[in-house]
């Protein structure tokens, strides 16, 4: 930040103004730090090969400072670029340290200038390209194509995207497991019914419904609930069929069942 470089004072003020304006508009208007740097470098109004990287770094750092002040959110790559430019600036300002190897400040600066020039060149040719006469806008293909007539031969087509997406679909479909109920802790009425049919013949005396639960199912709350419901529903079914009798002493008292004896016995 010293006067050791010879940056023109009025140039800085112009660029600062531009930078400030840009900030007011929107940080998001820039497609990344390189885009912003290119815009800043344009304010120097010289050939991109001759821009002052030092001035550019200052402008950029000023931009980032200002953004922080205004509490604008800056993406990480803006900050990475700021750090790198600060480093570059120090390399450009300090006399080269002969013990340190690695690229010199000039080399780094030249590369940055190259990147900016290349991006600017690409923008320019992109604009040239889009400015060309275009098919379907400025010149036209045959409107009435005659090649669809007569002997119909069916051919099938697919695009590269179809192919790639098809492949991706297969390779990722394991992740789309269809929704299924977890049945490990569920007892169905059919299961309960089957179980009780096998046991009911031995139930001469009133027995608690709970004793018909499968072993171990009373330990887990989910299983208890499921087996209670299933066993109760199954016992109602059996009672309906006339196979058992059900009784309950009072509300919430245990439900008891026993084999129904033939009338004549």
């Amino acid at each position, binding site marked *: 930040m010293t006067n050791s470089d010879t940056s023109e004072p009025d140039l800085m003020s112009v660029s600062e103004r531009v930078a400030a304006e840009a900030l007011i508009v929107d940080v998001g208007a820039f497609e990344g730090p390189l885009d912003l740097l290119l815009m800043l470098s344009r304010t120097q109004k010289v050939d991109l090969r001759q821009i002052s990287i030092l001035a550019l770094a200052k402008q950029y750092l000023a931009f980032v400072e200002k953004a922080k002040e205004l509490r604008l959110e800056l993406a990480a790559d803006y900050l990475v670029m700021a750090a790198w430019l600060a480093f570059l600036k120090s390399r450009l300002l300090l006399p080269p340290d002969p013990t340190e190897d690695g690229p010199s400040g000039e080399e780094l600066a030249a590369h940055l200038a190259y990147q900016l020039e290349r991006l600017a060149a690409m923008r320019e040719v992109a604009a040239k390209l889009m400015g060309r006469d275009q098919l379907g806008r400025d010149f*036209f*293909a*045959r*409107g*009435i194509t*005659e*090649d*669809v*007539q*007569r*002997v*119909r*031969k*069916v*051919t*099938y*087509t*697919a*695009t*590269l*995207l*179809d*192919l*790639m*997406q*098809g*492949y*991706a*679909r*297969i*390779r*990722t*479909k*394991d*992740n*789309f497991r269809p929704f299924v109920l977890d049945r490990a802790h569920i007892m169905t009425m059919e299961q309960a019914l089957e179980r009780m049919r096998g046991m009911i013949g031995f139930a001469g005396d009133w027995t608690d419904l709970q004793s018909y639960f499968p072993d171990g199912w009373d330990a887990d709350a989910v299983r208890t609930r499921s087996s209670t419901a299933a066993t109760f529903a199954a016992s109602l079914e059996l009672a309906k069929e006339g196979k058992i009798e059900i009784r309950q002493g009072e509300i919430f008292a245990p439900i008891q069942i026993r084999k129904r004896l033939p009338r004549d016995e």
Partner: protein
Amino acid sequence: MSDVQNESLFEAPPLAEQTRMVEAILFATADPVSIKELTGRMPHGCNPVEALVHVGKRYEGRGVHLVKIEDAYAFRTAPDLGYLMQKETVEVRKLSRAAIETLAIIAYHQPATRAEIEEIRGVSVSRGTIDQLIELEWVRLGRRRMTPGRPVTFVVTAGFLDHFGLENARDLPGLKELRSAGLLENRPPPGTGDVDEDTNDDQADMFEESDE
């Protein structure tokens, strides 16, 4: 064009220019064009009727000529050359999903046996699907696999590469590349983090060998 300034704005272009215009309009328009429509589309003061006469003459006896359909005009290929158009008479249909997936598996995993295709797709592959791909000349038989039963393998053809604009099946991007290049439908499977790292490796492996 003219030294009368005001007039020049509305002065009709020379007949030769009008002929060019009629030519271009009739060429590019999808339906036959009526005189009224021509007049409407050409600059003020043009006379399409006269231009049409010139166009008609110009194409007399050529491979293409001017025909009148009711009160509209169009270019048509000369009837005696109709036989040249026969090859193009194809009806294009979209390949079924089963066929695309089978084709994709063959392209990514070739040479692939039918059992391998079925294993990857998770469903059986009907005879007709592979037959269709063979008939399209996108798939052909490769070497038999030297495993018990010596199953037939399938590989993709030069015609396949041509159709899909590939130089080599190895140029197809792997899953990771598809995803990072944004070529996958943006539909991440619910609740899954990174998926099938190994899928890609598989593919890398597979292409590795083919390198020498």
